[in-house]
Every structure is written in C-alpha cells, then in structure tokens.
C-alpha cells in the first residue's frame, strides 16, 4: 500500500479551506499549520497565468527527515505515511532543516508536527480533512497500488508534476497541471 495525494491546480482557488479544516480537525494551534496555499503568477498584463497549490508534507518515499532524525521519532508508517512519535521527539529541529518543502513546524508542546494525511481518519475509511472539505474537490487521495483509487485514476488521466524533483525525495504529493 502506498498512500498518495494529488491536487488539481486547475481547480484550486486558494481559499485555504484545507488549512482551516486541518487546523480544526487536528487541533493545530492557531498560528501554525500543517498545510498551506501557494500561488505563483507569471506574465505581464494582460497575458497572465496563475497556478495555485495546496501544499503539505510530501510523504517522500526517500525522506530526508526520517534519515536525519536522531531518535527515530520520524518514521515510515503503514502505507508509506511519515509520522512523528511525539514522545520520542526531542524537538531538535534537524528534520525541519532537512525538509526541502518546509513542511514541518515546532509544536508549542515541544515536538515537531506536520501533515499525517489525517491518519486517524484514513484508518477509519475517511479521506483526509482537506480532501473532504475542499469546495472545489481539487484534492484526490488514495492508494497508488490500487488502480481504482481516486488518486490512481486521476494520475492516469491527467498531466502532473511534483515539487523540487531534483531533491530526489520521491514525493507522494502530485500536482495536476
């Protein structure tokens, strides 16, 4: 099983519903977030293009954060999800520095936190909170090993990219373009 997510940049309007839904679902303290929105614009008036992306931890198959964690708190879990064991984490911040996507933040309770693909939800058969809430339905989630999962189907149909491929992290977060 390999969990993955695809975000359709053609539909995303950058409303940040994914951010606030994640914050409430996961009790992320205000002032922090596990996912965020990036907008890039190119061209000059009136020949313009924008791309909007909902970003988060890429759950890399080759994850620098896991490699550099001195205590084993950052680890691969079922389906390739990368999780942080709160009680093992000493908050040293090595993983934050190593992540090319800036996906981690120091939780005020002293450990490092980030997107878990809403592990508590997916284990109960529910999509991650961001995918469930998105009013544009631009977030697809599922198992890459299941050819009929939402994410497999949409990746078969559409062109996509990953972020910073040159980092060699093998991300599991895809952007439909």
């Amino acid at each position: 099983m390999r969990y993955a997510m695809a975000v359709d940049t053609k539909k995303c309007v950058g409303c940040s519903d994914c951010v606030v839904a994640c914050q409430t679902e996961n009790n992320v303290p205000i002032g922090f977030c596990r996912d965020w929105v990036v907008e890039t614009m190119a061209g000059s008036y009136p020949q313009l293009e924008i791309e909007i992306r909902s970003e988060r931890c890429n759950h890399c198959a080759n994850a620098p954060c896991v490699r550099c964690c001195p205590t084993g708190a950052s680890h691969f879990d079922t389906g390739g999800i990368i999780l942080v064991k709160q009680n093992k984490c000493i908050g040293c911040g090595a993983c934050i520095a190593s992540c090319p996507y800036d996906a981690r933040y120091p939780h005020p309770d002293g450990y490092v936190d980030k997107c878990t693909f809403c592990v508590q939800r997916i284990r109960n058969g529910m999509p991650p909170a961001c995918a469930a809430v998105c009013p544009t339905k631009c977030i697809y989630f599922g198992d890459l090993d299941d050819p009929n999962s939402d994410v497999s189907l949409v990746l078969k149909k559409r062109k996509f990219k990953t972020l910073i491929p040159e980092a060699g992290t093998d991300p599991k977060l895809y952007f439909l373009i």
Partner: protein
Amino acid sequence: MTSRREFIKITALGVGAIAAGTGMYKAGRFFALPDKPGKVDPDLTRTPTYCEVCFWKCAGWVYKNPEGRIWKITGNEEDQHCNGRFCPRGTGGVGMYYDGDRLKNPLIRVEERGKQVFREASWDEALEHVAGKMKNIASKYGPESIALFTHGSGSANFTTLVKAFGSGNIAEPSYAQCRGPRDEAFFATFGEEVYSPEVTDIRDTKCLVLIGSHIGENMHNGQIQEMSDAIDKGTTIITVDPRFSTAAGKSKYWLPIKPSTDLALLLSWTHEIIYNEYYDRKYVEKYCTGFDKLKEHVKDFTPEWAYGITTLKPDLIRKTAREMANASPAVLVHPGRHVTWYGDDTQRIRAIAILNALLGSWGRRGGFYRPAKFSLAQPDIPKFSEPARLAQDLFPGKYPVASSAVSNALIDATIPENNPGYPIKGWIVNATNLLSTIPNIPNTLKAIQNLDLLVAVDTMPMEITGWADVVLPECTYLERYDALRVAPHRKPAIALRMPAAEPMNNSKPGYWITRELSKKLGLASYFPFEKQEDLLDWQLKKAGTSLEEMKKSGVKTFEREQDDLYFAEDENVVFPTDSGKIELYSGYFEQLGFDPLPKYYPHEEPPEGFYRLIYGRAPMHTFGRTTNNPNLADLMDENCVWVNPKVANEWGLKTDQLVWLKNQDDAVTDFPVKVRVTERIRWDSVYIVHGFGHTGKQLSRAYGKGASDTRLITRVLVDPVMGGTGMRGNFVTFLTREPGKEVAS
C-alpha cells in the same frame, strides 16, 4: 513567460520556524480561551446547524471533542447548499464562538455618543430602557420614526417586533448596498428575481460569463462547487474584470475591461447576438416583447464602438459573443451579487437580463432554473397594522422601483436638514455594522447624532456598537435555535439550526431578546411561543416531521411537486410581468421616466495621479464581520493594496511598503496598508479586499490591520431607479508618509 514572476504564500504560517528564529510566534496568536465556556451535552456528539458566517446558509454539523467542547464544523452531505463541504469561513465558524472579544453583557452608554463609555446592565434594565425610549419616540413622532437595520437569520424576529410596533422602515443593507439593482432588473425583465442562493444552473452550463463577479474569491459555496465541476467538464468561462481575478485565471477568455464601461460591452454583445442572428429566435418570438425596439436600439453598438470605450479588442468581443451563441441555451451570463458600482447598476443588470433572454437561458438547463421553496406554516398572530407613513413617504417620488426600504435613505432621513417627510429618531441595528457597510461614514455619524435611541444587537463589539446607547449581546449561531431555513433551491428543503452549546457569558438568542422586548412593549401576542424551539417543533410537525427527527438529520429535502426545473418544450409560460412576457423593452421603466432600454453613459475618470478604487472579497472572509475571528484572521489578518508595476514604478513603491490611501475628497485611511505590486491589476485602478482597517479597539485581532475601503468611499453614486449606493466612483492616491507628516519642516 518567466519574465515577471510573483510568488505568494497565501497562508504564510508556521513553516521554517526554527530556521527563521523563534520570535516569529507571538503568544497572542494562540487561542484566547473564553472566560466562561458554555456547558455542552456530552451525549450529543454532533448537532445540526446552518451556517451564519455568510448568507449562503449551508447546513452542517457541529462536532464536540471528548471534553464536550465545540471542536469542528463540517458540511451536511444531504444539503443542496453545500453537498457536505463547508467553505473556509464556515469551517472557521468555530472562531466566532471562541472569540474572546465577544460582547458579554448588555451595556448602557454613560457618556457622550461615540466615546464608548458604557456601564454593564442587567437584561431587564437594558430592555426596559429600550422599551421606554421606543414608547417615547412613538408618542412624540409616531412609531414609524423607529427604523430597523438588519441582516442575517435573526432578521425574522426583529422584523416581527418592529412591524408589530407599527413601523415599516425595515432595511437590509443587502438590498441597497448589494443585490438590490440585480433583483429589480431581473424583476423588471422576467417578473422574478434570481434569489439567494442564485438560481444559476452553473452545474450544467456550457458557457459561464462572469462580469466583475469573482467566484472563487467570493466563496458562495454552491457556486464555487458548481464552477469547479464546470471546469472539470471543460466549460467555457469568460471573465470580464479589470483585475486578473482567480476566476480570470480559470477562464478561457479574460476581458481586461476598462472599469466602469461594462454596459458598453454588454450592448455590443447584444448587437453581435442580434445582428449575427445568434439569438434563440423561437424563444424570443414566443416569450419576449420589445425585440424590434431593442434591435433598433443596439444598431450602432458595434464591437468597434465598444473598443473605443472598453479598450477590449473587437475581435475578442466577437469571439466571446460567438462562444455564448454556440452554448445557447446552456449559457449563463451571471447576474452577479454585489452589483452597486456606478449608480446605473439597475440598467447594467437589465442589459445582462436582456442578454440572457436573447440567448434563451432563463428557465433552461445550464442557464437559470426554476426554484422550489418549502413553505412553512405560520402561527396565528395579530395582523400588523398598516403604518400610517411608509418608507416611500420619507422622500416622495424618489427610488420608485425600490421594493424594500433603502437603508441609505433611512440614514439620510435621520438628518433633519435633508427635509424628510417625517423624522427618523430611533435605530435598531441588528447584526450589521453600518459603519463598515454603508458608504460615506461621516454622513452616517451625522445621522447618529440626531437619534433619540440607537440600539445595537451583535455578537461582537463592532464599530456601530461603539456609537450605540444600548448594546445587546446576542449569542452566536452556534448557541441558538433560529428560524428554519427554507431558501429556494432545486428541490424544496428545510434545515435546522440548534445550539451546540449554551450561550456564553450573558449573551442571549435573538428570539429571546425580541420576545422579552415585545412583552415590555405590550406586543407579546406576536411571539406566541415561549421558546423558539417550541415554534420550530410546531412548524415541523405541520410539515410532517418534528424537532426530534430534524435533530438527527439536520436537513429534510422534499421532491418537487412537478418536474418543472426547466421550461418544458413549447411550454406556454406566463411571466409575472405587466405584459406576461419577458420585457426586453421595459414599459414599466418608461412610465417612471427611466430608460426603457439600457444606455451607456460615460462615468468620470480618475484625475491625474489618482486611481479608481476597486474592492472585493477574499475567500476566507465575509466583509468585516470575520476579520477578528481567530481562525480566519489566522488565514488572512490584513489586506493589501494591489498596484500595477507601472504605477508602482512611477511612485517608487515596493511590495510590502506601507502607504496611506487618500481619496478625491481628502479622506485618508485610518491606518497604513501594505502595497502588493502585481500585474494582476490594471494601471488605472487599485484593489483592496473589503472588511479590514477596523477602528474598534475592542477587536483585538482586527484593530488597525489594513485599510478600510468604506473609509475611502465618500462619493456615492446613487441609483435613481432603486436607491442603490454605487461605490466604485472613488479615486485614490498614495501617501508614502504618515498624513500630517508629509512635509518635512
């Protein structure tokens, strides 16, 4: 296209913190826990509500955590308004409940108005005070001298109270400051308005035309969901906007129009559609009147003519007209929602209505559907007596088409030197911050100084509450029952709102407030049920369900009585207009002395060194009412002013630099605002998101953040047809130093 790149992290939170240093997170950004959290029934893990963060009224569920405290809000899958998905504002609605700045107790003013010195009072004393003043005003001037300004679901209670008291001066700013021109224009053309949620069939359209309407930044849930589905299906989207809006970024065609010239484009499209015979001939012959007059009227409005006015290339106008024709009748020229722009707004929307009629989209799949609404039984209450003097008698002959009271006219009538037909001496202001909603703030403040009574009912200490004589703290939508939601949609439906927690502090539901007040005014018979939930249960039982059942489902959807979502083939439709037809040519307008067919009149242009002020919405906020919400302020806590790079160059402005904005009448923003240099705005305009720049210090998160567009809207272009306040005729320039300190001495 790599030359000019702009990169923005919209939600710039929480990442890279250790590297960036620890000073980044101020303790103040954590949840301020409420003083007295209300008790929650732990047996109920989720309770139904419908959202009140905007007025799309999505039905959803409020979940509690194991400690029994409100945790999160999600959409109800059965609900047509949201299909199980809330927008960011609705998801962040929890912040309305937890906001530590909420009003806590009734307040009575002790010093001069506006000084904001109050003392706490008991509910009994506060309501006694209000009732006494209302009776005084009635005996001195008549009950019509009380005016109600109201917004949102609580309106029903306050409307009943004020009508029972004997006044018809009940105004919702959502009319004259927002949707009014649209409703009147569609009414004049089709005999029917487009309602809220709009009856726009975006889901099935093949061509969606947005004119200044920025769906995606404006997050009305059903529309954004359907637009997204339309993008998936490859629908052609045409966006007309001087700003490269999010919707423009999703469009096949973006028409970067010169602001204030939309009517010229619409007339030119009409010309193209008629003279190329693109229109739906059968539909027009069967259902419309006035076609020949219209044809003659638009004869000269060629794309070349429009080019000179709009700066849009004739070829682009032709191509987009053809796209609409190819999709007809599944084409939707969107009527917009906030349409009070230039004072000729009813006429502009008439041109939109006419275009839809020519394309045959009204009553057709992919155009506008026929709504269905559930009607609820109403309790037996005494008949309201007809007020001796009406809103129209304040300024006889003005705004003849206005179908409801015009809030700005009520405000003007409060100023004696405007010579109103009779005085307005008391305001009840429910859930609307008039100092942010109504343009020309100095005028509103002047009006307030002439009042004998100003009561503000709100959950938050908004600017208007600072000017009130009596402040009544209402609890939030998460702590109360409210009227059942029966908004029109594809299918008739009812939705229930029930409290997820007890009212925090000493706040009370609107029903309780109005009922208690009605007792003190001798009007208790208008509120026959002791509690709102008793009324709801009675209504629900009459509707074949019950409060108990609705608590479990939240929403109940019924089938339509007839399969008439769209006109049937060759259906003989009688339109509720004077002629029974769609009126392309409006005899009604002609009789009243208005143009029976829309005409383009040029609008004033910005003077040298000034730029047209355009304002709009951000997806995480609903006007100024959410900018203090802890969850939503976390997503966006200030606005910025969008400036084209050419203009920035001339002024030497850089992104993130602070400037003050000054308008043509020397009105200056209260606070500095950050510049965002971006290609996404035309060189003749600047853009800011509405709702920021709060001056109320009690709003601890929103105070002093960004600029208020309302502060800069001192010139109001009033629509003579229905009284709408056109707000896009203001021009601003930049002050790079704090006002008063520009000149070094």
